[in-house]
């Protein structure tokens, strides 16, 4: 009787700490991804000035143990950095259509 209960609570323990740990981890991973994408857009010369502030907000949220918000900010930063990379690729092909005719 005792054994299953114990193992159950042990399991719950592992599971719940697992969730908390993976939340912090996943928030950190999300920030890392955003930072990498930001660096890519910088290298292409198409950095938006909206991305770094989002990453900073994500880092602040991590410090406040608010991993949900941290992840949200980081994901938003990644989305914007991706768009700026797309913009760089588009402009590489299309900029000269803007030349005066």
């Amino acid at each position: 009787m005792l054994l299953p209960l114990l193992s159950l609570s042990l399991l719950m323990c592992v599971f719940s700490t697992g969730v908390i740990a993976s939340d912090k981890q996943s928030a950190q991973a999300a920030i890392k991804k955003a930072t990498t994408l930001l660096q890519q857009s910088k290298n292409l010369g198409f950095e938006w000035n909206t991305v770094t502030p989002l990453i900073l907000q994500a880092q602040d949220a991590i410090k406040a143990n608010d991993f949900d918000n941290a992840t949200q900010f980081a994901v938003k930063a990644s989305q914007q950095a991706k768009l700026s990379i797309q913009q760089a690729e588009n402009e590489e092909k299309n900029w000269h259509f803007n030349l005066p005719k």
Partner: protein
Amino acid sequence: MQRLLNTFLSLSLIVVAIPAVATPEQNKESFQKFYMDRFSHIEKDDFANGVYALDQDARDQWEAMSDFPPFEDDLDEGEALFNTPFANGKQYADCFENKGQGVRQNYPQFDSKSGQVITLELAINNCRTQHGEKALPYKKGDLAKVSAYMASTSKGERFDIKIPNDKRAQQAYEAGKKYYYSKRGQLNFSCANCHVQNVGRKARSETLSASLGHPTHFPVYRMKWESFGTLQRRFDSCNKQVRAQPLEGQAKDYRNLEYFLTYMSNGLPVNGPASRK
């Protein structure tokens, strides 16, 4: 049908070929012609006055304060700095042609030794470091004051930017051109979207100036800054407007952009420093 296809094909070939074959000189001609056709009542030299060539109300206000330009003290400081010898006894005048008097119209230059575009501000800092002084921060402060003084000694000289027969110079020019025509920032605007396609129209409360004449009056004393700023400081302001991250002062892209933009104004007179809102 075959004929039609052929003409279509050759036409599309021409369209595709234009950007590749146009020389800087041809680019400049069509760039200047665009503005002169669009504003046929404006004298070419008047484009050196920026937005005040296009907006009479703004010009009236601007001229009312030109008797006592807000930058007089800073300009005097620039002159004093220019004439202050470095610790090793040399001075700025030793680094420039004609002792640094009346040279603004020749910058940016392509330096074939380093393979780089050298703006006036970069040349000023190179002069300092060559003579054992610390480089000054770019975009504002003492460097902008010295640059403003040097511009003031060049009033009326006509811009004469050269693109030497050196592949690297042509690449630098092309890179600057590409920067100018590429959309950037979250708002997805190129310089040309505002200063070519929408020139003369209002963006919020401001009339958009022509890029013909953009570099002629820099450094500019902006009321908003309450100080002098270099052309690259102004690039920052425009980049921020479209939510693009500004670059470091004298970043390669900025120098190439300045090279292209100034070449487009070849033939216009130096009329800096000037004041702006």
